């Protein structure tokens, strides 16, 4: 790849070289360094087997889940600028987002459909990993992390479901919380911890909000990073372990 003069002057500049500590990635060494010297890329291996790139092996479901998560963070932050988690103001701010905030309805649509999509894609991803036997050693623990990620995804979606504070969300959360209340011995206590009281109200809303915008997304980002990092540490995708003869 021949570079033009102005481009070379840019990439040779002191400022550029202080940011990117590798040369133009047109040779093996610099392509390796691009991956290892960049915090966003370093979860990837430097080289991948052609087998792990086969579309019909993964269907890209893991990446899709990560992409949907990113869309959720992005649209979620935009919604947070307007949404107020109080029983009096939650619903009016939802109306405001839909009616008077520029692209508000659209942002909310993206957030909602991405949330449903993420739950679906994460379930499909689990099925893919199961049916390809990718949970087998040495990847056992990464499967367990995946199960936790599935539960966190369900939790994030469920806590977000209450926030619009409409009839749909109110009664869905009531039904859901009642299920938790059926646990033997600890049931009523668990229900009360979840709701912050005996029924869905202001205390529930602020609990679900805090879980939804802070605790669960942070846990997700942490565990997704560990999950991806372990994929690399365990030798890439399980497809790489298949002998070439097949």
């Amino acid at each position, binding site marked *: 790849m021949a570079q033009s003069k102005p481009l070379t002057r840019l990439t040779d500049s002191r400022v550029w070289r202080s940011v990117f500590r590798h040369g133009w*990635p047109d040779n093996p060494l610099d*392509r390796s360094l691009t991956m290892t010297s960049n915090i966003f*890329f370093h979860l*990837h291996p*430097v*080289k*991948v*087997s*052609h087998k792990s*790139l086969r579309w019909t092996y993964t269907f*890209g479901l893991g*990446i*899709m889940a990560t*992409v*949907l998560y990113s*869309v959720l963070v992005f649209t979620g932050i935009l919604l947070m600028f307007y949404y107020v988690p109080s*029983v009096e103001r939650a619903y009016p701010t939802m*109306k405001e987002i839909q009616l008077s905030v520029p692209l508000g309805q659209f942002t909310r*649509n993206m*957030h909602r*459909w*991405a949330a*449903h*999509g993420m*739950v679906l894609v994460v*379930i499909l991803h689990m099925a893919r990993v*199961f*049916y*390809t*036997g990718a*949970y*087998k*050693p040495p*990847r*056992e623990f990464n499967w*367990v992390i995946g199960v936790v990620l599935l*539960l966190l995804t*369900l939790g994030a979606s469920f806590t977000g479901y209450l926030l619009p*504070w*409409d*009839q*749909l*969300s*109110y*009664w*869905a959360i009531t*039904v*859901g919380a*009642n*299920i938790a209340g*059926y*646990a033997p011995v600890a049931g009523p206590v668990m229900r009360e911890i979840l709701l912050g009281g005996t*029924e*869905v109200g202001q205390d529930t809303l602020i609990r679900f909000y805090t879980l939804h915008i802070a605790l669960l997304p942070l846990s997700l980002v942490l565990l997704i990073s560990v999950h991806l990092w372990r994929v690399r540490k365990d030798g890439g995708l*399980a*497809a790489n*372990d*298949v002998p*070439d*003869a097949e």
Partner: protein
Amino acid sequence: MNDAPMNEEIFPKGTGKSYALVEMMRGESPMVGKGPEKTVFSFPVVLLWEILILLGVTLALFFFSLVKQAPLDAIANPQVTTDPAKAPWYFVGLQELLEHMHPTLAGIVIPGILVLFLVALPYLDYSREHAGVWFSTRRGKRIAGWTALYAVVAMTAFIVLDNAFSMRELLRGAAPAWVAQWLLPSLILALIVLLPVAVLWRKGASVREIMIALFTVMLASAVVLTISGFLFRGPGFEMYLPWQMPDGYNPWNDF
């Protein structure tokens, strides 16, 4: 200046030698038993793949969000129960299960067993054979296909029959409540789950094949329960055909 000669002695300059910390250890080299590397550099191939998926997913969401609006019902009112009151779609399978047995069994025990099964799975089936191949073998694929079909039929039959001839109602007065609420549903579900396992066991199936059967029964049952709860339950959580819902209730509006 005094210690200069000593430095020279320990680290002689310009000998052309290089040093490394190495240790001999038992074990295979990472390349033992592997063919020639057929690898590509992650940069840019993998990154281009990822950008492509990112653009595809975002575009799909973008267009879907243009045509379908997120629902916003009337403001929450603790005094007025919606009818039906449904959990989000991913929990509506559990809600469907609640109709057929004791809430503790449906809402806590069964989900608990499922999560434990998922966590324990890689420690029960730890053979590395056929890892990285869809369904492991041809036989595995057949097992998955047949158990999926079997589980769909069995769970549908369970839901429809229990809905038509409720065990709770039939046994009222004849047996204590725990028989209809705990014992019979547990037995029926255990039978549904263990029947394919028993058949495979007799045929000398591997652990992996039994796991394929168990996982498939779980997944197919979850799909049936979710579809039943989401599409076939109307006002009063009664069973209706989706196109014959009373009171103009449309299950899709709850999405």
